[in-house]
Protein backbone atom coordinates (compact mmCIF):
# COMPACT_ATOMS: atom_id res chain seq x y z
CA UNK A 1 0.00 0.00 0.00
CA UNK A 2 2.83 2.37 0.84
CA UNK A 3 4.47 1.70 -2.56
CA UNK A 4 1.24 2.38 -4.31
CA UNK A 5 0.60 5.47 -2.22
CA UNK A 6 3.94 6.83 -3.28
CA UNK A 7 3.01 6.11 -6.86
CA UNK A 8 -0.25 7.92 -6.46
CA UNK A 9 1.38 10.92 -4.92
CA UNK A 10 3.90 11.15 -7.72
CA UNK A 11 1.28 10.61 -10.35
CA UNK A 12 -0.86 13.29 -8.83
CA UNK A 13 2.07 15.68 -8.69
CA UNK A 14 2.94 15.09 -12.31
CA UNK A 15 -0.52 15.02 -13.76
CA UNK A 16 -2.32 17.31 -11.42
CA UNK A 17 -4.92 14.72 -10.65
CA UNK A 18 -5.93 12.84 -7.54
CA UNK A 19 -5.62 9.19 -6.69
CA UNK A 20 -7.61 6.49 -8.34
CA UNK A 21 -11.28 6.63 -7.48
CA UNK A 22 -11.17 3.11 -6.22
CA UNK A 23 -8.38 4.02 -3.86
CA UNK A 24 -5.08 2.27 -3.41
CA UNK A 25 -4.94 -1.42 -4.13
CA UNK A 26 -2.21 -3.97 -3.68
CA UNK A 27 -2.45 -5.24 -7.22
CA UNK A 28 -0.90 -2.33 -9.06
CA UNK A 29 2.68 -3.15 -9.93
CA UNK A 30 3.66 -0.45 -12.42
CA UNK A 31 6.53 1.73 -11.33
CA UNK A 32 5.72 5.38 -10.76
CA UNK A 33 8.54 6.71 -12.90
CA UNK A 34 7.60 4.57 -15.87
CA UNK A 35 3.99 5.57 -15.64
CA UNK A 36 4.85 9.21 -15.46
CA UNK A 37 7.26 9.11 -18.34
CA UNK A 38 5.06 7.17 -20.73
CA UNK A 39 2.13 9.52 -20.74
CA UNK A 40 0.43 12.04 -18.55
CA UNK A 41 -2.15 10.32 -16.40
CA UNK A 42 -5.66 10.98 -17.60
CA UNK A 43 -7.93 12.97 -15.41
CA UNK A 44 -9.33 10.78 -12.69
CA UNK A 45 -12.93 9.79 -13.25
CA UNK A 46 -15.37 10.98 -10.64
CA UNK A 47 -15.26 9.05 -7.43
CA UNK A 48 -18.04 6.52 -7.05
CA UNK A 49 -19.83 6.03 -3.71
CA UNK A 50 -18.22 2.62 -3.35
CA UNK A 51 -14.81 4.03 -4.18
CA UNK A 52 -15.21 6.84 -1.69
CA UNK A 53 -16.34 4.41 0.97
CA UNK A 54 -13.37 2.15 0.27
CA UNK A 55 -11.04 5.02 1.04
CA UNK A 56 -12.83 5.78 4.28
CA UNK A 57 -12.70 2.12 5.24
CA UNK A 58 -8.96 2.20 4.82
CA UNK A 59 -8.80 5.06 7.28
CA UNK A 60 -11.08 3.30 9.72
CA UNK A 61 -8.87 0.21 9.55
CA UNK A 62 -6.08 2.39 10.89
CA UNK A 63 -8.24 3.31 13.88
CA UNK A 64 -8.71 -0.36 14.64
CA UNK A 65 -5.09 -1.25 14.01
CA UNK A 66 -3.73 1.53 16.23
CA UNK A 67 -6.21 1.13 19.05
CA UNK A 68 -4.55 2.09 22.30
CA UNK A 69 -1.75 4.09 20.71
CA UNK A 70 -3.01 7.60 20.09
CA UNK A 71 0.23 8.99 18.74
CA UNK A 72 0.52 6.17 16.22
CA UNK A 73 -3.10 6.60 15.24
CA UNK A 74 -2.67 10.32 14.71
CA UNK A 75 0.43 9.77 12.58
CA UNK A 76 -1.19 7.03 10.54
CA UNK A 77 -4.34 9.02 9.90
CA UNK A 78 -2.39 12.13 8.96
CA UNK A 79 -0.35 10.15 6.46
CA UNK A 80 -3.35 8.34 5.06
CA UNK A 81 -5.35 11.54 4.71
CA UNK A 82 -2.52 13.24 2.85
CA UNK A 83 -2.33 10.29 0.49
CA UNK A 84 -6.02 10.67 -0.26
CA UNK A 85 -6.26 14.42 0.06
CA UNK A 86 -7.77 14.96 -3.38
CA UNK A 87 -10.59 12.58 -2.65
CA UNK A 88 -11.20 13.41 0.98
CA UNK A 89 -10.65 17.12 1.35
CA UNK A 90 -13.77 18.31 -0.42
CA UNK A 91 -15.78 15.33 -1.54
CA UNK A 92 -18.91 15.58 -3.60
CA UNK A 93 -21.74 15.83 -1.04
CA UNK A 94 -23.80 13.49 -3.19
CA UNK A 95 -21.45 10.62 -2.39
CA UNK A 96 -22.50 10.32 1.23
CA UNK A 97 -26.14 10.73 0.29
CA UNK A 98 -25.78 7.88 -2.17
CA UNK A 99 -24.11 5.74 0.46
CA UNK A 100 -26.86 6.48 2.98
CA UNK A 101 -29.46 5.41 0.46
CA UNK A 102 -27.74 2.14 -0.39
CA UNK A 103 -28.62 -0.79 1.86
CA UNK A 104 -25.33 -2.51 1.12
CA UNK A 105 -23.06 0.51 1.56
CA UNK A 106 -24.78 2.18 4.51
CA UNK A 107 -23.82 -0.42 7.16
CA UNK A 108 -20.24 -0.37 5.93
CA UNK A 109 -20.20 3.41 6.23
CA UNK A 110 -21.62 3.22 9.74
CA UNK A 111 -18.97 0.70 10.72
CA UNK A 112 -16.18 2.80 9.24
CA UNK A 113 -17.38 6.01 10.82
CA UNK A 114 -18.01 4.23 14.11
CA UNK A 115 -14.42 3.04 14.20
CA UNK A 116 -13.12 6.54 13.54
CA UNK A 117 -15.40 8.01 16.20
CA UNK A 118 -14.37 5.39 18.70
CA UNK A 119 -10.70 5.90 17.97
CA UNK A 120 -11.07 9.64 18.24
CA UNK A 121 -13.03 9.49 21.46
CA UNK A 122 -10.45 7.22 23.06
CA UNK A 123 -7.72 9.72 22.13
CA UNK A 124 -9.67 12.79 23.08
CA UNK A 125 -7.11 13.98 25.60
CA UNK A 126 -4.02 12.99 23.68
CA UNK A 127 -2.02 16.00 22.42
CA UNK A 128 -0.83 14.23 19.28
CA UNK A 129 -4.33 13.22 18.34
CA UNK A 130 -5.72 16.64 19.13
CA UNK A 131 -3.25 18.10 16.65
CA UNK A 132 -4.67 15.91 13.90
CA UNK A 133 -7.71 17.98 12.96
CA UNK A 134 -5.94 21.35 12.57
CA UNK A 135 -3.15 19.62 10.70
CA UNK A 136 -5.28 18.05 8.01
CA UNK A 137 -8.05 20.63 7.86
CA UNK A 138 -6.57 23.96 8.89
CA UNK A 139 -9.83 25.73 8.10
CA UNK A 140 -12.44 23.14 8.88
CA UNK A 141 -14.87 23.80 6.10
CA UNK A 142 -17.75 21.46 6.55
CA UNK A 143 -20.45 23.95 5.74
CA UNK A 144 -21.32 25.69 2.50
CA UNK A 145 -21.90 29.40 2.53
CA UNK A 146 -25.62 29.21 2.13
CA UNK A 147 -28.50 26.82 2.25
CA UNK A 148 -29.82 25.46 -0.99
CA UNK A 149 -33.13 26.90 -2.10
CA UNK A 150 -36.16 25.29 -0.59
Amino acid at each position, binding site marked *: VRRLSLFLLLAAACAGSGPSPAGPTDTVEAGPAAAAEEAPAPAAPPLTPAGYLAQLEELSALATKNKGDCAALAAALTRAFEERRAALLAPDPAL*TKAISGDDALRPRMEAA*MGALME*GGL*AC*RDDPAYRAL*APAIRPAAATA*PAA*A*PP*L
Partner: protein
Amino acid sequence: MKRHPITGAAALAGLWLSAGAASACPWDNETYHAEARSLPCVFEVLVGAYPQHTEEYYEARIYAADQALLFAPYYLEALDMKAVALLKLRRYEEARAVLLARAAADPDGYETHANLGTLYTFTGELDLALEHIDKAMAKEPEAHFGREKYHRMLVVYLKDVAADPEVAKKRDFLGLSLTRAQLTGGSKGEFKKSGLEEDAFDALASMISVYGADEVPDLYLAFGDLLALRGERRLAWTAYQRVVEMKHPRAKEIKKWQRELWTKIRDDYGPGEGMSEGLYRGIDQAYAGERATAKTIRKEYAAWEKERLAAGLAVFRDEGLAEIYKKQAEVRPRCKAPGILRGELAGVEAPR
Protein backbone atom coordinates in the same frame (compact mmCIF):
# COMPACT_ATOMS: atom_id res chain seq x y z
CA MET B 1 -27.19 24.87 30.54
CA LYS B 2 -27.91 28.12 28.79
CA ARG B 3 -31.47 29.31 28.53
CA HIS B 4 -33.06 29.94 25.20
CA PRO B 5 -32.48 33.48 24.05
CA ILE B 6 -35.52 35.53 23.26
CA THR B 7 -35.25 35.86 19.55
CA GLY B 8 -37.18 37.16 16.62
CA ALA B 9 -40.84 36.49 16.53
CA ALA B 10 -40.67 34.43 19.68
CA ALA B 11 -39.71 37.57 21.56
CA LEU B 12 -42.72 39.35 20.18
CA ALA B 13 -44.89 36.53 21.36
CA GLY B 14 -44.59 37.83 24.89
CA LEU B 15 -42.43 37.85 27.94
CA TRP B 16 -43.91 34.66 29.31
CA LEU B 17 -41.94 32.99 26.57
CA SER B 18 -38.89 33.85 28.61
CA ALA B 19 -37.64 30.39 27.79
CA GLY B 20 -37.70 32.01 24.39
CA ALA B 21 -38.46 29.16 22.12
CA ALA B 22 -40.65 26.27 21.46
CA SER B 23 -40.32 22.62 21.20
CA ALA B 24 -39.73 20.94 17.92
CA CYS B 25 -38.90 17.70 16.28
CA PRO B 26 -35.22 17.24 15.61
CA TRP B 27 -33.99 13.90 14.31
CA ASP B 28 -30.77 11.99 14.87
CA ASN B 29 -29.67 8.49 15.77
CA GLU B 30 -30.88 8.92 19.35
CA THR B 31 -34.45 9.65 18.34
CA TYR B 32 -35.62 6.06 18.30
CA HIS B 33 -34.08 5.34 21.67
CA ALA B 34 -35.56 8.47 23.17
CA GLU B 35 -39.07 8.30 21.79
CA ALA B 36 -40.05 5.39 19.63
CA ARG B 37 -40.90 2.78 22.23
CA SER B 38 -41.16 4.68 25.46
CA LEU B 39 -41.18 8.12 26.99
CA PRO B 40 -41.16 9.47 30.50
CA CYS B 41 -44.69 8.99 31.86
CA VAL B 42 -46.99 11.99 31.94
CA PHE B 43 -46.72 12.60 35.66
CA GLU B 44 -42.92 12.42 35.51
CA VAL B 45 -42.90 14.86 32.61
CA LEU B 46 -45.09 17.30 34.49
CA VAL B 47 -43.01 17.31 37.67
CA GLY B 48 -39.67 16.96 35.88
CA ALA B 49 -38.92 13.59 37.47
CA TYR B 50 -37.07 12.12 34.53
CA PRO B 51 -33.33 11.91 33.82
CA GLN B 52 -31.84 14.57 31.60
CA HIS B 53 -28.63 14.38 29.63
CA THR B 54 -25.65 16.28 30.91
CA GLU B 55 -23.77 18.91 28.95
CA GLU B 56 -20.88 16.48 28.91
CA TYR B 57 -23.06 14.01 27.02
CA TYR B 58 -23.79 16.48 24.24
CA GLU B 59 -20.18 17.56 24.09
CA ALA B 60 -19.17 13.93 23.66
CA ARG B 61 -21.69 13.52 20.84
CA ILE B 62 -20.33 16.63 19.14
CA TYR B 63 -16.76 15.47 19.52
CA ALA B 64 -17.58 12.00 18.20
CA ALA B 65 -19.40 13.47 15.21
CA ASP B 66 -16.40 15.68 14.49
CA GLN B 67 -14.14 12.63 14.32
CA ALA B 68 -16.24 11.28 11.48
CA LEU B 69 -16.74 14.65 9.79
CA LEU B 70 -13.00 15.23 9.76
CA PHE B 71 -12.71 12.52 7.15
CA ALA B 72 -16.22 12.51 5.66
CA PRO B 73 -17.50 16.08 6.01
CA TYR B 74 -20.92 15.29 4.58
CA TYR B 75 -21.63 12.12 6.55
CA LEU B 76 -25.31 12.68 7.20
CA GLU B 77 -25.68 10.74 10.43
CA ALA B 78 -22.80 12.64 12.01
CA LEU B 79 -24.18 15.96 10.80
CA ASP B 80 -27.52 15.15 12.41
CA MET B 81 -25.88 14.02 15.62
CA LYS B 82 -23.78 17.17 15.87
CA ALA B 83 -26.58 19.54 14.91
CA VAL B 84 -29.05 18.11 17.40
CA ALA B 85 -26.45 18.19 20.17
CA LEU B 86 -25.71 21.83 19.37
CA LEU B 87 -29.41 22.62 19.44
CA LYS B 88 -29.69 21.02 22.87
CA LEU B 89 -26.82 23.19 24.05
CA ARG B 90 -28.53 26.27 22.54
CA ARG B 91 -25.54 26.88 20.24
CA TYR B 92 -27.77 27.89 17.37
CA GLU B 93 -25.32 29.51 15.00
CA GLU B 94 -23.05 26.50 15.08
CA ALA B 95 -26.07 24.27 14.55
CA ARG B 96 -27.09 26.40 11.58
CA ALA B 97 -23.70 25.88 9.88
CA VAL B 98 -23.92 22.14 10.39
CA LEU B 99 -27.47 21.94 9.10
CA LEU B 100 -26.63 23.95 6.01
CA ALA B 101 -23.90 21.43 5.27
CA ARG B 102 -26.48 18.71 5.67
CA ALA B 103 -28.81 20.54 3.30
CA ALA B 104 -26.06 20.68 0.72
CA ALA B 105 -25.54 16.94 0.93
CA ASP B 106 -29.20 15.97 1.13
CA PRO B 107 -31.39 18.87 -0.02
CA ASP B 108 -34.58 16.83 -0.09
CA GLY B 109 -34.02 14.68 2.95
CA TYR B 110 -36.67 14.47 5.65
CA GLU B 111 -34.04 14.96 8.34
CA THR B 112 -32.70 18.06 6.60
CA HIS B 113 -36.06 19.77 6.78
CA ALA B 114 -37.07 18.42 10.18
CA ASN B 115 -33.87 19.66 11.76
CA LEU B 116 -33.88 23.01 9.96
CA GLY B 117 -37.51 23.42 11.02
CA THR B 118 -36.41 22.83 14.57
CA LEU B 119 -33.50 25.25 14.35
CA TYR B 120 -35.66 28.03 12.98
CA THR B 121 -38.27 27.41 15.64
CA PHE B 122 -35.65 27.84 18.31
CA THR B 123 -34.27 30.97 16.71
CA GLY B 124 -37.72 32.47 16.24
CA GLU B 125 -37.47 32.48 12.43
CA LEU B 126 -40.98 31.13 12.30
CA ASP B 127 -41.74 31.57 8.59
CA LEU B 128 -38.64 29.59 7.72
CA ALA B 129 -39.55 27.05 10.36
CA LEU B 130 -42.95 26.51 8.81
CA GLU B 131 -41.51 26.15 5.33
CA HIS B 132 -39.15 23.41 6.48
CA ILE B 133 -41.71 21.66 8.66
CA ASP B 134 -44.06 21.55 5.68
CA LYS B 135 -41.28 20.17 3.52
CA ALA B 136 -40.57 17.50 6.12
CA MET B 137 -44.23 16.58 6.42
CA ALA B 138 -44.59 16.46 2.65
CA LYS B 139 -41.75 13.97 2.59
CA GLU B 140 -43.19 11.91 5.44
CA PRO B 141 -46.76 12.82 6.42
CA GLU B 142 -46.60 10.66 9.55
CA ALA B 143 -43.19 12.02 10.39
CA HIS B 144 -41.69 11.69 13.81
CA PHE B 145 -44.18 9.07 14.95
CA GLY B 146 -46.98 11.43 13.90
CA ARG B 147 -45.77 14.18 16.21
CA GLU B 148 -44.46 16.66 13.66
CA LYS B 149 -47.95 18.07 13.18
CA TYR B 150 -47.91 19.31 16.77
CA HIS B 151 -44.65 21.05 16.12
CA ARG B 152 -46.36 22.78 13.24
CA MET B 153 -49.34 23.78 15.39
CA LEU B 154 -46.98 25.31 17.91
CA VAL B 155 -45.16 27.38 15.31
CA VAL B 156 -48.44 28.62 13.84
CA TYR B 157 -49.56 29.57 17.35
CA LEU B 158 -46.33 31.45 18.03
CA LYS B 159 -46.84 33.37 14.82
CA ASP B 160 -50.41 34.19 15.83
CA VAL B 161 -49.28 35.35 19.26
CA ALA B 162 -46.55 37.44 17.71
CA ALA B 163 -49.19 39.17 15.60
CA ASP B 164 -51.64 39.52 18.49
CA PRO B 165 -50.45 38.80 22.06
CA GLU B 166 -54.08 38.57 23.20
CA VAL B 167 -54.29 35.21 21.44
CA ALA B 168 -52.27 33.66 24.27
CA LYS B 169 -54.98 34.65 26.72
CA LYS B 170 -57.72 33.03 24.73
CA ARG B 171 -56.53 29.60 23.72
CA ASP B 172 -53.66 27.20 23.98
CA PHE B 173 -51.52 26.15 21.04
CA LEU B 174 -53.76 23.17 20.34
CA GLY B 175 -56.68 25.56 19.92
CA LEU B 176 -58.36 24.57 23.18
CA SER B 177 -60.27 27.05 25.30
CA LEU B 178 -61.99 24.95 27.96
CA THR B 179 -65.39 25.74 29.38
CA ARG B 180 -65.96 25.31 33.12
CA ALA B 181 -67.91 22.16 32.39
CA GLN B 182 -65.05 20.74 30.37
CA LEU B 183 -62.52 21.70 33.02
CA THR B 184 -64.09 19.74 35.85
CA GLY B 185 -66.26 17.34 33.92
CA GLY B 186 -63.80 16.05 31.40
CA SER B 187 -63.85 12.43 30.36
CA LYS B 188 -62.66 10.13 27.62
CA GLY B 189 -65.92 10.85 25.85
CA GLU B 190 -65.41 14.60 26.06
CA PHE B 191 -61.89 14.19 24.80
CA LYS B 192 -63.08 12.13 21.86
CA LYS B 193 -65.72 14.73 21.00
CA SER B 194 -63.03 17.40 20.80
CA GLY B 195 -61.52 15.70 17.78
CA LEU B 196 -58.09 15.60 19.36
CA GLU B 197 -56.02 12.46 19.27
CA GLU B 198 -54.26 10.47 21.97
CA ASP B 199 -50.91 11.06 20.31
CA ALA B 200 -51.10 14.66 21.51
CA PHE B 201 -50.01 13.43 24.95
CA ASP B 202 -47.00 11.70 23.48
CA ALA B 203 -46.12 14.78 21.46
CA LEU B 204 -46.27 17.08 24.47
CA ALA B 205 -44.25 14.68 26.57
CA SER B 206 -41.62 14.54 23.82
CA MET B 207 -41.48 18.28 23.43
CA ILE B 208 -40.95 18.84 27.14
CA SER B 209 -38.79 15.91 28.14
CA VAL B 210 -36.79 15.12 25.01
CA TYR B 211 -36.34 18.41 23.20
CA GLY B 212 -35.55 20.64 26.12
CA ALA B 213 -38.68 22.77 26.07
CA ASP B 214 -39.24 22.10 29.75
CA GLU B 215 -39.37 25.80 30.54
CA VAL B 216 -42.04 26.76 28.05
CA PRO B 217 -45.30 27.37 29.97
CA ASP B 218 -47.49 27.21 26.86
CA LEU B 219 -46.72 23.52 26.58
CA TYR B 220 -47.82 22.84 30.15
CA LEU B 221 -50.97 24.88 29.59
CA ALA B 222 -51.86 22.77 26.58
CA PHE B 223 -51.00 19.66 28.56
CA GLY B 224 -53.29 20.76 31.40
CA ASP B 225 -56.13 21.50 29.03
CA LEU B 226 -55.78 18.14 27.31
CA LEU B 227 -55.65 16.26 30.60
CA ALA B 228 -58.62 18.10 32.08
CA LEU B 229 -60.64 17.48 28.96
CA ARG B 230 -59.86 13.78 29.22
CA GLY B 231 -60.84 13.67 32.87
CA GLU B 232 -57.30 13.30 34.23
CA ARG B 233 -57.87 15.95 36.86
CA ARG B 234 -54.93 15.26 39.16
CA LEU B 235 -52.55 15.34 36.24
CA ALA B 236 -54.25 18.47 34.89
CA TRP B 237 -53.84 20.18 38.27
CA THR B 238 -50.16 19.30 38.18
CA ALA B 239 -49.69 20.69 34.67
CA TYR B 240 -51.46 23.90 35.63
CA GLN B 241 -49.23 24.21 38.68
CA ARG B 242 -46.23 24.40 36.38
CA VAL B 243 -48.01 27.05 34.30
CA VAL B 244 -48.60 29.14 37.41
CA GLU B 245 -45.01 28.73 38.60
CA MET B 246 -43.75 29.87 35.21
CA LYS B 247 -45.86 33.01 35.45
CA HIS B 248 -47.88 32.56 32.31
CA PRO B 249 -50.11 35.61 31.69
CA ARG B 250 -53.11 33.45 32.53
CA ALA B 251 -51.64 32.34 35.87
CA LYS B 252 -54.26 34.10 37.96
CA GLU B 253 -57.12 32.56 36.04
CA ILE B 254 -55.47 29.15 36.14
CA LYS B 255 -55.11 29.29 39.90
CA LYS B 256 -58.88 29.48 40.04
CA TRP B 257 -59.11 26.50 37.74
CA GLN B 258 -56.85 24.57 40.08
CA ARG B 259 -59.14 25.29 43.01
CA GLU B 260 -62.13 24.04 41.05
CA LEU B 261 -60.24 20.96 39.99
CA TRP B 262 -59.17 20.31 43.57
CA THR B 263 -62.74 20.48 44.77
CA LYS B 264 -63.73 17.98 42.13
CA ILE B 265 -60.77 15.73 42.93
CA ARG B 266 -61.73 15.63 46.59
CA ASP B 267 -65.24 14.67 45.61
CA ASP B 268 -63.86 11.91 43.42
CA TYR B 269 -61.28 10.63 45.91
CA GLY B 270 -62.97 11.16 49.22
CA PRO B 271 -62.09 9.00 52.21
CA GLY B 272 -63.51 5.55 52.11
CA GLU B 273 -63.04 5.22 48.37
CA GLY B 274 -60.08 2.90 48.77
CA MET B 275 -57.58 5.68 48.23
CA SER B 276 -54.80 6.47 50.67
CA GLU B 277 -55.26 9.59 52.71
CA GLY B 278 -52.31 11.31 51.09
CA LEU B 279 -53.97 11.29 47.73
CA TYR B 280 -56.93 13.37 48.78
CA ARG B 281 -55.48 15.34 51.65
CA GLY B 282 -53.22 17.67 49.77
CA ILE B 283 -52.25 17.46 46.16
CA ASP B 284 -49.95 20.44 46.63
CA GLN B 285 -48.01 18.56 49.30
CA ALA B 286 -47.63 15.54 47.07
CA TYR B 287 -46.54 17.83 44.25
CA ALA B 288 -43.87 19.51 46.36
CA GLY B 289 -42.52 16.13 47.38
CA GLU B 290 -42.32 14.94 43.78
CA ARG B 291 -40.56 18.11 42.67
CA ALA B 292 -37.93 17.50 45.31
CA THR B 293 -37.60 13.90 44.18
CA ALA B 294 -37.14 15.13 40.62
CA LYS B 295 -34.01 17.04 41.58
CA THR B 296 -32.55 13.98 43.27
CA ILE B 297 -33.28 11.82 40.25
CA ARG B 298 -31.53 14.20 37.89
CA LYS B 299 -28.54 14.57 40.14
CA GLU B 300 -28.11 10.83 40.50
CA TYR B 301 -28.49 10.22 36.79
CA ALA B 302 -26.05 12.99 35.90
CA ALA B 303 -23.42 11.44 38.15
CA TRP B 304 -23.88 8.07 36.44
CA GLU B 305 -23.77 9.57 32.96
CA LYS B 306 -20.60 11.53 33.65
CA GLU B 307 -18.95 8.45 35.07
CA ARG B 308 -19.83 6.37 32.03
CA LEU B 309 -18.68 9.10 29.66
CA ALA B 310 -15.36 9.26 31.44
CA ALA B 311 -15.09 5.51 30.97
CA GLY B 312 -15.55 5.95 27.23
CA LEU B 313 -19.21 5.09 26.75
CA ALA B 314 -19.84 4.97 23.00
CA VAL B 315 -22.53 7.62 22.85
CA PHE B 316 -22.63 7.43 19.07
CA ARG B 317 -23.45 3.72 18.87
CA ASP B 318 -26.75 1.96 19.37
CA GLU B 319 -25.22 -0.13 22.14
CA GLY B 320 -24.18 2.98 24.03
CA LEU B 321 -27.57 4.59 23.63
CA ALA B 322 -29.28 1.37 24.68
CA GLU B 323 -27.24 1.38 27.89
CA ILE B 324 -28.21 4.98 28.54
CA TYR B 325 -31.92 4.40 28.09
CA LYS B 326 -31.81 1.21 30.15
CA LYS B 327 -30.32 3.25 32.95
CA GLN B 328 -32.88 6.02 32.52
CA ALA B 329 -35.68 3.48 32.83
CA GLU B 330 -34.08 2.11 35.98
CA VAL B 331 -33.84 5.55 37.51
CA ARG B 332 -37.51 6.21 36.84
CA PRO B 333 -39.82 3.82 34.96
CA ARG B 334 -40.89 5.00 31.54
CA CYS B 335 -44.25 4.51 29.84
CA LYS B 336 -44.67 2.61 26.63
CA ALA B 337 -45.08 4.75 23.55
CA PRO B 338 -47.15 5.50 21.64
CA GLY B 339 -50.02 5.98 24.04
CA ILE B 340 -48.14 6.93 27.19
CA LEU B 341 -51.28 8.08 28.97
CA ARG B 342 -52.66 4.57 28.77
CA GLY B 343 -49.51 3.19 30.39
CA GLU B 344 -50.06 1.67 33.79
CA LEU B 345 -47.59 4.11 35.31
CA ALA B 346 -49.29 7.14 33.86
CA GLY B 347 -51.12 8.11 36.99
CA VAL B 348 -54.11 7.22 39.07
CA GLU B 349 -57.34 7.44 37.17
CA ALA B 350 -60.36 8.90 38.88
CA PRO B 351 -63.23 6.51 39.49
CA ARG B 352 -65.87 6.64 36.76
